């Protein structure tokens, strides 16, 4: 960390013995502004005043501009100085304008006004974050595709993707209102994956947006997902480059997931080989991570999940060797395919036949034997 005291000309500002400096952040303390050279009786008088009793706003203030309101934080007098500790850490690279007007001291100074600009150094970096991949990996999507995940090589900012992602059809025309105009936080916890919802009002049949505009994707057409480089990463930098992803739209998938069509390939006992499940259609990549598990004697087995090509394969590698006997594959009812269809329950029709009795979902089980 470099030195921080700087005036307009980059040097410490001093007038009448007053010195303004920026103390760099420490592991347990934020960067703070310190003003030294104020006489002891004035400091004592300020310390004796209640926090709101001292004329801080006119005496000593830090702002993002000369005419901006004071930055929130603690303005205090110590034994030796005036100090400002901000409520939120100061931004690196931003100018903060410090104003100390000593005519508001108990014993006013002859040259009362001192101004200084302080700034934390900002590490200069070149944009390096990129789009790592688009999920589903299958470039053949049903025309009622519900969501697309965008994975990044590094954490991104909190910005919503709606302003940065465009859907362009095979005639080069942007599909308007393709995505849900949402600014809700659709990032994963570490901000490396963004969920882009195709507007479900257009995807679903029989409701107004669908009747008015049709589905954003049309079977038989090709599309390009275009991601602007202006989307900022967690360091505030744009993406290193824009991203384009080509895919084709096919027939809508409107049936529920049918577990009887899954194929289970049990490994041999005594090995840690991967249990492989194959599905005839692509399932949702996000939900495949947590909606399927393995149990033995009612106890969950610990293991690592792998998702295979086109999200049509799910693999489970146990941490301990398989033992001979009966196991069960657990499939939570929240599992969806890429069009939002669930196990035995299509996206668009609900039989309304039963009521969930707990906050935990129902589960389906598929028994299998290890030999």
């Amino acid at each position, binding site marked *: 960390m470099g030195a921080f005291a700087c005036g307009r000309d980059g040097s410490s500002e001093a007038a009448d013995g007053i010195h303004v400096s920026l103390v760099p952040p420490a592991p347990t303390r934020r960067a703070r502004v310190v003003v030294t050279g104020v006489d002891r009786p004035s400091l004592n008088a300020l310390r004796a005043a209640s926090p709101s009793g001292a004329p801080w706003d006119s005496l000593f203030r830090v702002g993002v501009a000369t005419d901006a309101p004071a930055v929130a934080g603690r303005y205090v007098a110590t034994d030796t100085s005036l100090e400002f500790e901000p409520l939120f850490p100061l931004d690196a690279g931003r100018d903060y304008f410090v104003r100390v007007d000593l005519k508001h001291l108990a014993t006013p100074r002859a040259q009362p006004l001192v101004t200084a600009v302080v700034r934390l150094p900002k590490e200069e970096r070149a944009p390096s974050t990129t789009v790592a991949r688009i999920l589903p990996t299958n470039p053949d999507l049903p025309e009622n595709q519900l969501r697309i995940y965008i994975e990044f090589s590094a954490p991104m900012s909190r910005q919503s993707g709606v302003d940065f992602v465009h859907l362009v059809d095979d005639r080069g025309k942007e599909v308007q209102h393709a995505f849900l105009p949402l600014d809700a*936080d659709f990032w994963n916890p570490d901000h490396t994956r963004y969920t882009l919802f195709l507007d479900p009002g257009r995807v679903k049949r029989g409701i107004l947006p669908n*009747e008015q505009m049709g589905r954003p994707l049309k079977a038989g057409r090709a599309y390009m997902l275009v991601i602007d480089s202006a989307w900022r990463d967690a360091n505030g930098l744009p993406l290193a480059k824009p991203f384009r992803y080509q895919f084709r739209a096919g027939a809508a998938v409107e049936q529920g997931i049918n577990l009887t069509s899954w194929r289970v390939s049990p490994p041999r006992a005594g090995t840690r080989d991967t249990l492989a499940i194959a599905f005839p259609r692509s399932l949702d990549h996000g939900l495949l991570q947590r909606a399927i598990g393995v149990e033995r004697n009612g106890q969950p087995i610990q293991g690592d999940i792998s998702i295979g090509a086109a999200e049509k394969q799910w693999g489970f590698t146990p941490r301990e060797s398989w033992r001979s006997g009966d196991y069960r594959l657990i499939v939570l009812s929240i599992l969806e395919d890429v069009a939002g269809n669930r196990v035995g329950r299509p996206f668009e029709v609900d039989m309304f036949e039963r*009521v969930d009795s707990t906050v935990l979902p129902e589960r389906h089980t598929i028994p299998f034997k290890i030999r």
Partner: protein
Amino acid sequence: MRSKLPVALAAVSVAAVMSLTIAAAPAPKPAVTKGVSPQLQSIGPLAIGPAGVLYASDPSAATIYALDLSKQKAGAPGTKDIQALDQQIAATLGTAASEITIADLKVEPKSKNSYIAVMRGQGANAAAALVRVDGAGKIDVISLDGVSFTSIALPNAPDANPANGRSNRSQSVTNLAFANGKVYVAGLSNEEFASKLWSIAYPFSSADRGTSVEIFHGNHGRLETRSPVYAFVPYSVKGEANLIAAYLCTPLVKFPVSSLTPGAKVRGTTIAELGAGNRPIDMVVYAKDGSEYLLMSNTSRGVMKIPTKDFGTQTAITEPVKDGTAGITYETIKSMTNVQQLDLLDASHSIIVAKSPTGVSLQAVALP
């Protein structure tokens, strides 16, 4: 040699052996915390309760905080108009307007001060801030140091393989309201597409984890879909407590609060269709000239004034809507444009945060 995913070889069709069972899993333990000086990871929708309690959602932590602000020093009564609100708040937080997100605004009915939920920073170190604007136009950051709170964590997401540790799921909170002793929370997941609405009795208690319901709406004689509730407002229809809810797919739906029993699957009545390419932002109910109205701000269809007199009698929309809108009609308020936040200030004014070419402003506007 065995490939990582040996799909075809030795595969066993599960058709013959599969069985379906429903497991009665034990309810998870409630997670109620009481303390002083809460540390919010993030801040989203707000709600105002009685006796100085402000409810604040922390979407990143999937937690709802009840903050006791009764001991806060009051600001000047009212909320004064502020031009360049985003810049003023950002400056107070020591940053630029481009670095903040205004997540919600609610007016405290007694003081008429506006409380604004703000995220400071866009990156990994983004922090939550609660800001108050008073009648003198003073912007104060409400320090949560020393503030008493209780909080309740929303139920964990289902996970069949928790040890895998690779869940990318997150839960955002899209709307919060307090009515009749209960906090209502609407949430959206970045993965499963389901409508989850929690009702949680306040004071939060370990004995009551709250109720989670799935809400459906009929749009069509044949089709019935699940869709997330995005915004809602508690409202009494013919003496019965209801929630008036707007869904992601734009219908306006009512359902009685009494239907929100634990684990219930609730069917809402669609009373209006509000069109495509749109998302509701905020809703308030007010009275004028002897009639009541719902005022709703939207992302792309302006502010709608919807008379509530027919909410009780409107026939449910069950047929596809071919063109325009359907059900209860509304009037678009042309004087209110680009409204990002909306709440009631008093009996005759709303407070809006609106975007204009010159910036984002906070202003009191006469109710239409």
